[in-house]
């Protein structure tokens, strides 16, 4: 079930999840939409280094620590936007931090999906193209993978509304499925 603007506010008031900072609490104006809340662009842009002589291998145990080494970081401010060139891929994140806690039994858990905004879509800007789900248990700013699909450069400013968050109830507790452990005896399996 997708939460309405008012339901989002009510759930936040009850401590079910948090989105902060938000600009206002009037459900009929920004950042609220009828059944979503708009989020703003943060200040950092990560630009993958071009022509870097590596092939990314996710099996590499240090992959998380390695990815930042093959990216350049650019920090925007009100006077210094980032120019997203056509066909360019960058990684950014939201100004807002979100938290969707795993709650005690009997309490509702929530998750969310990040979606683009029609205004940016008309300009050919993808704000995510593969990883929209904000799972229950996540905490922090939301990472956005962006591509400019238009024929023109596009200016990114910090604080601009960049995406919308659709919040949903999680039915049941987000535990591991029982069959995930059955018959396993190795380090990933049953502990003797």
């Amino acid at each position, binding site marked *: 079930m997708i939460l309405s603007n008012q339901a989002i506010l009510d759930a936040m008031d009850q401590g079910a999840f948090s989105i902060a900072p938000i600009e206002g609490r009037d459900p009929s104006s920004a950042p609220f939409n009828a059944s979503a809340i708009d989020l703003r662009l943060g200040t950092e842009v990560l630009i993958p280094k071009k022509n870097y002589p590596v092939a990314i291998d996710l099996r590499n145990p*240090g*992959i*998380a*620590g390695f990815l*930042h080494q093959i990216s350049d970081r650019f920090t925007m401010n009100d006077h210094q936007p980032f120019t997203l060139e056509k066909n360019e891929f960058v990684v950014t*994140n939201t100004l807002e931090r979100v938290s969707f806690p795993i709650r005690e039994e009997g309490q509702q858990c929530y998750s969310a999906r990040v979606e683009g905004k029609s205004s940016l879509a008309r300009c050919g800007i993808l704000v995510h193209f593969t990883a929209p789900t904000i799972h229950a248990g996540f*905490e922090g*700013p939301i990472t956005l993978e962006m591509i400019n699909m238009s024929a023109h450069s596009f200016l990114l400013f910090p604080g601009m509304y960049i995406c919308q968050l659709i919040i949903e109830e999680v039915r049941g507790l987000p535990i*591991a499925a029982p069959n*995930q452990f059955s018959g396993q005896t190795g380090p990933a399996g049953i502990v003797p």
Partner: protein
Amino acid sequence: MFGVIRERAHALDMDACARYADAMPENPEDQQQSDESAAKTGEKLEIRLAGKATASAQIRARLTKGTKVWIPCKVSEGMFSNESAVEISLPSGEKLSLYVDKSLIQGTGDNAKLRVYVVESSDKEITVLLPSESFQGSRWVRVPQSELVLA
């Protein structure tokens, strides 16, 4: 083509966890007081896998779904300034690698801790949920209950 993404739990590397035992109180009474204090105040619990002591029944009873606990990890710089790259060692020598918000980390380098949620708890073990998916695919880590020491 990527390999098969696993959706299963991993057991923590006991060796990687053992260093936390060094910080344990020598006097068992001190440990008991520590446990009782944590239970009274409702503080966040830290899991220390020492292999030489067990958590009190009182504390174990508090390891319900949604309880926040800490597991040992190694951290390094993340992509964004607000995040860290985290590495969790498994007994097989395999490592889980993921990005998490810095607010979920205590400590630095090889002696850091990551805050996670308990999602399953039994007499034998608990299963914790990582804050985000690892690059290796899993979000769950299993911790033997018999090895728990709570700070």
